[in-house]
């Protein structure tokens, strides 16, 4: 089985408890970082879009914007792999409730915002990005599967790729079945070659049994409340000094990641 080597140039993160990757670092170091304002800033969006955009879009764009800023890359040049296990749950809840009672009153804007690729669509529009963009999911393995897809694009096309994985909290009756109790979003900028912007080198090896590496104490329970938090073992590694972790990429397939700090 071939090994995939990619280089991390930027990391983004947002949750109601953590404003960014630096806050995760602080938390893991034993500090108590101040929580961000309740609505992700999503400064990459033009102000009018930011006011109207659904929460799922704000969350993904916030994480993406942080990672791209850290990388120093031009967002327009990055291929985009956006993942979410459940898409926009508030819109799904709204649509199913409206369709059950008054289908003729469905909002056209909410409908076109309901597509799984809404966040990446808004991102490419805001950044003028004509590169390939995709929106994917793989139930609880969405982050692992997205990392594999992003690394595949980095290596086959020899181009930098923006990876985003985010899920909002659930809404209405749907919340009971998705089990999402809090928002979580993260993003990585991955590149084929080492550069002055490289933070870490990742070696990905497919084919281990599907396991999720245990999380450090302050993050206990985070994965249960949001499928995108399955990224935390890797984010915790990136916040530290190196080592390895395992992620699930499919129901019966795992991915081992060896991380070495470069910066």
């Amino acid at each position, binding site marked *: 089985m*071939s090994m995939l080597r990619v280089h991390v140039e930027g990391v983004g993160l947002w949750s109601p408890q953590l404003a960014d990757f630096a806050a995760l670092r602080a938390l893991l170091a034993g500090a108590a970082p101040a929580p961000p304002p309740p609505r992700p800033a999503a400064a990459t969006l033009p102000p009018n879009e930011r006011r109207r955009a659904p929460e799922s879009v704000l969350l993904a764009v916030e994480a993406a914007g942080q990672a791209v800023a850290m990388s120093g890359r031009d967002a327009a040049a990055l291929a985009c792999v956006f993942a979410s296990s459940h898409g926009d749950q508030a819109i799904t809840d709204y649509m199913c409730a409206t369709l059950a009672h008054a289908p003729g009153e469905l909002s*056209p804007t909410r409908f076109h915002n309901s*597509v*799984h690729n809404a966040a990446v669509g808004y991102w490419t529009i805001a950044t003028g990005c004509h590169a*390939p963009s995709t*929106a994917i*999911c793989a139930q609880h393995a969405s982050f692992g599967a997205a990392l594999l897809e992003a690394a595949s694009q980095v290596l086959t096309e020899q181009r930098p790729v923006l990876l985003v994985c985010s899920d909002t909290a659930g809404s209405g009756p749907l919340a009971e*079945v998705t089990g999402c109790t809090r928002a979580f979003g993260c993003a990585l900028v991955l590149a084929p070659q080492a550069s002055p912007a490289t933070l870490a080198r990742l070696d990905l090896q497919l084919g281990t049994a599907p396991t999720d590496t245990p999380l450090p104490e302050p993050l206990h329970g985070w994965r249960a409340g949001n499928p995108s938090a399955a990224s935390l073992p890797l984010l915790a590694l990136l916040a530290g000094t190196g080592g390895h972790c395992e992620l699930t990429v*499919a129901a019966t397939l795992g991915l081992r990641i060896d991380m070495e700090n470069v910066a």
Partner: protein
Amino acid sequence: MPTLMTPLAVTAYTVTSAMGSGLAAQLDALEHGRSGLRPNDISSAPLTCWVGRVDGVEGATLPAALGAWDCRNNRLAWLGLNQDGFLERVHAARARYGADRVALLLGTSTASIGATEEAYRRLDADGGFADDLLRPAIHAPHSLAAFVAAALKLDGPCLTVSTACSSSAKVFANAERMIRLGLVDAAVVGGVDTLCDSVLFGFNALELVSPEPCRPFDAARNGISIGEAAGFALLERVGTAADAPQLLGYGEASDAHHMSTPHPDGLGAELALHDALARAGLDAARVDYINLHGTASLKNDEVEAALVGRAFPATTRASSTKGFTGHTLGAAGIVEATIALQAIEHDLVPGNLGGDTPDPICGVQFAWRNERRRVDVALTNSFGFGGNNACLAFARAGFAA
């Protein structure tokens, strides 16, 4: 510019749509110019429009062991998998390569949202999902791929691509990347979307649904007809199947323009087309047939017809087949890939059904009626909301660009 792609063999494929179940039914409908559209008889409340509904979905019960996955979308997937000996071809690939060496990459726009809609129509007394629908896995967008992985007993990488109406075209690109990197030896690609209230009332709210059967590229076109479909293909390295048709290339690009209308100059569509041609090592003049996205929306057809006019010579024949199937949304990419493959296999350019009064913007490339001619290279266009564009290039077995 992308590098030249090593072609992949399409060693098996199948399709089920309003044209019928399986490739023979599709070919027969294409040859006879027979539309599968009918007046809407499926939405939970009345809506005047035509739909491409698949017969027999309700009766396609899942095997007992897969019963937890039951919903209309997965029944359509199961119906589709059981056509054209496709299951047997996947079983053979699994035996040959190993279950963890075959990827499963499926596109869908709404997966089994129809089941979630149903749950909301009959919430129990305390406002929760009824017991029979309290199955979390079918209320997630990965429902389709997770079900098919279980049905095919595949243990390799498994991914849902959900980029609206380009979804099941883009999975061919995912497969090529994984095979090129040696992550897998083969891939099952495809997609399934089913008729449901979300898409019928959603597109209706956007004023994109025609009250009549859709008329792609017609001067008087007035909107889309929505359809449902399931389609699958098995991709392997060419060395294993020299007599199979080939995936020569693919292109993907973003409009960066608007969420629900295409770029006025077809910018992303043109980038995807040129990307596909470059990967395939083809001049546009080598393309014999292009199956267009051609939804019959005013804007899509205007932009796409202009692209065909400036990118291809008269020898490239072009048509939309949405008049046969309706717009099958996330399944459109795979449905139209199978039409392109049948065009190659049977030397048939399908006519652009519904275009009785051609829009003057359409050039000489348009095939308004069926044409019998040799087709060595066929392309398909698939464009989605969010400005998401994909183009696939297929060729006859043994074709050398």
